[in-house]
């Protein structure tokens, strides 16, 4: 037990040191990188590791006879979560969202410290002491609070009342509901029944199982499958269409969606909403190919209002590309990211 807890304590201390180092810029902030697409899981597991670390720390301190008061444990843990959310996660979470998390974690901490009568007593004792106790230390503390509290509350309300010019927050739906059908270059496509005419096997039949075998491998790097090089002279059918789609992508789309399809193209920094990141498991991996066909063909201007059509710079690609070219680009996007398009059933 003790050994286990010591390991936990060690992890806790190391994690804390690392976080502090990152906040003050002593340790480069990308030492433990938040991997795109896996961030929520990563954040949760990191927090779990911290909790384990703190448990170990507190156990160890207890057994060494330097017990840490329950009151300060609660307060510090809550402060820790706030610090973590503010400094660890990038792009930064807006204050309003952090306030929400803050409330939730406050309730959680409160439930923890008031789990049973004894714990609750331990927790509130320091508070009562400040109010009542007659030792010199507590008297001084009481006087300090007497002066500091009005100043802090007054100052805080001054800051909130002072007119500020923060960016207004507007929430946009990234993947709005698609229409039942869409008309592109004079032809109507029913989204539920249409298929990518280039996702075909060597006999020329629609075959997703065939194309799935030839896409880029998942995992770090996402490299093409061995012996499935679209640039091979002998590449035919699906792989040849992938190359043609890639050519169109790198003549048109990479300016915003980036050379690695991660939404970090040459012009991306200037635009808001930012270009979609196809390597994120939350974008094309979650969508049907025909949904993408509709989004690409109609562009930002074709979005319903919840998608903010007035702000998106996504071109309606029917103005620039033929339908064949659009299907090939979509084929390439799935190939390059290594994702399977979602099917309707």
């Amino acid at each position, binding site marked *: 037990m003790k050994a286990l807890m010591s390991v936990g304590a060690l992890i806790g201390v190391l994690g804390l040191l690392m976080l502090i180092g990152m906040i003050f810029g002593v340790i480069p902030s990308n030492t433990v990188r938040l991997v795109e697409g896996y961030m929520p899981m990563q954040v949760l597991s990191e927090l779990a590791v911290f909790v384990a670390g703190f448990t170990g720390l507190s156990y160890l301190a207890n057994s060494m006879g330097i017990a840490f008061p329950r009151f300060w444990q609660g307060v510090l843990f809550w402060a820790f979560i706030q610090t973590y959310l503010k400094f660890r996660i990038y792009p930064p979470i807006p204050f309003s969202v952090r306030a929400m998390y803050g409330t939730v974690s406050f309730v959680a901490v409160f439930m923890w410290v008031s789990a049973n009568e004894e714990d609750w007593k331990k927790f509130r004792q320091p508070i009562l002491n400040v109010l009542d106790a007659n030792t010199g230390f507590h008297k001084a503390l009481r006087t300090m609070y007497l002066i500091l509290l009005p100043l802090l*509350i007054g100052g805080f309300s001054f800051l909130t009342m002072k007119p500020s010019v923060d960016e207004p927050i507007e929430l946009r739906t990234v993947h709005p509901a698609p229409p039942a059908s869409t008309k592109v270059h004079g032809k109507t496509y029913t989204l539920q029944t249409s298929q990518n005419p280039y996702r075909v096997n060597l006999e020329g039949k629609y075959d997703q199982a065939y194309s799935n075998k030839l896409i880029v491998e998942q995992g770090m790097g996402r490299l093409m499958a061995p012996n499935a090089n679209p640039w091979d002279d002998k590449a035919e059918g699906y792989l040849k269409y992938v190359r043609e789609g890639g050519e169109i992508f790198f003549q048109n789309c990479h300016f915003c969606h980036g050379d690695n399809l*991660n939404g970090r193209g040459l012009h991306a920094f200037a635009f808001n909403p930012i270009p979609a990141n196809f390597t994120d498991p939350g974008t094309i991996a979650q969508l049907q190919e025909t949904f993408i066909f509709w989004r690409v063909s109609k562009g930002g201007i074709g979005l319903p209002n919840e998608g903010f059509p007035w702000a998106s710079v996504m071109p309606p690609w029917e103005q620039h590309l033929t339908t064949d070219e659009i299907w090939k680009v979509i084929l390439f996007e799935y190939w390059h990211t290594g994702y399977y398009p979602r099917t309707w059933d």
Partner: protein
Amino acid sequence: MGLILNLTNNLGEQVVRLTMSKLRMNVKATPIIGAALGALILSASAVGLGHAGDLPEGFAKGELAPAPPAEMIEAGKRVYFTKCVWCHGVDGAGDGPGADRLWPRPRNFNQGTFKIRHTASGELPLFNYNEKTPDSGKNDLLDTVTHGLPGSAMPPWEGILTEEQRLQVLSFVTTQLVKDRKFTDKQSETQTILQLGTIKPAEPTEESIKKGAQLIVDKKCIECHGVEGRGDGNAFNLKDDWGFSIQPADWHKCWNFRGSRQDPYNVRNIFRTFSTGVNGTPMPSFADSTSVEDRWSIANFVNSLCERDAEGKPLGIDPLTDKPKINFVVPSAPVEGEISNDPENEMWKKQGRRYVAMGGQITHKPRNFVNRIDDIWVKSLYNEKNVVYLIQWDDRTKSVAEGKLPWAPTQVNVENFGVKEQAPKTGEEGSIAAAQNNYAVYNDGIAFQFPIKWQEIPAPFKPRYLWGDAKFNADILKWEADGSLRSFKGTGWDQDFEERDDFEEKVKLLKSEWKNGQWTVMISRPLKGDKDDYDEYTRFDIGKYIPMVFFAWDGHNGDAGRKMAVSAFYYTILQPPIPQEVYIYPAIIAVGVVFLEGWMLTRRANKKKGKVL
């Protein structure tokens, strides 16, 4: 003696080989320039031989790195054909499908000419398949692939490819795609390495920076980079080794330095580029002619020019984009009386400026794949009658169209007049890089739009960013370098503007000046139209967020109509003067808290007394 002779021999060989390779590749591009360059290098070689034996200060001789093993090269091929081939091409000649719409063009690997290095001018960059740590100063190519080349389409591959994969693809590129030179050939290649790790940087003291300011004049840096370092000194005539136009770096935008390694305010990057030169471009190495101390002074000075915030601190850089962080609010501060038309006036100096990022208009034809204006700086003030915007941006070329433009100022569809977007596949000769400095010259311009009747548009609806739409119209003010300032109504991206002469009498161009590569334009407009009527014009209400979009045209980039740079939606807000309540209420609250505390403590004290008694 024998040793010196040997060295001389080696150097001699190297210079001859360099001359040969330069001649070869330039003859391919433009024979005349090639011959001229050849002659230049020959004359330089005479000087170089005179120096033989002693290395430039701060450099040391290095060993060529070992050849990468065959399996790494083979693995690298797989990386290359997944990620790189799309721009750099099947043969590494920088002619992939994406190349013709890019400027700068993707690197042609065949000649072995690489820009960002720790090695002496003309030498191959450092590459060692065994040196796995980026930023060690021992593996230039790994650093380039890791951090990308900001300001070009080359992205950072860190976090996308593993270090192993990056070394693999470099093993493939350096052995299979570099064709004219060989990284392991001791006969032809040398490595003279800048010892950046052991040279202590000179502190950026006032004295050092002042010395640097003088040195950039003495060393003729300003002939290309311009008097204020905005890259406007020689914007028209510079070509790279492949015959394409190239522009000197703008020292005010260090985040666009190719060699900034995602650490733009780090002075070491500037010191390195200045010491080693940029191979394949007109930027020479100053190592032979400049002492290490002087090089630090110049680097400190150049670094000091990079844009900073009001307190002189480096701007916050967004790690996702490697550009300055964006705040989408352009605040306008209240002033009493007349608003000065002098940007150096105290009222303007006091007001903070905002960085507005500009991307190419890539939504509708003609798309602008290369926008030469990638940011503008905006300040704003208002008084009881007018709101004034002060807009400043770097533009290496002052462009005013000769004669009258063939289209009316209200016309937005100008494709029929030759304003066309770059074709996707043209080959080098027809590429966007070859077109630079060959465009018909139109007017530089700046414009911004607000929604008309925004008071009646429910949030978050807005008129479309590109000149409004049929339902929600946009109020557009456009300035052009011919001195005109016009007011338009926009009703859609492809709809010609409606000119509003009656409003034009009320808007005012307070200043427009191009100086040393920077435009300064100051535009005043009334807060409202006549009689509070806002059916036609945007009415500004204090304390409200009003959506705003910026547009910019660089006349020498052939920009006109929709071929332009455009921003995202920003918000402008007339900051209300701070009302008295803001001071009064917090004081009342604080006093209230004091009473509350007193009440609570008395109560507890009484309770305790009660218990004791």
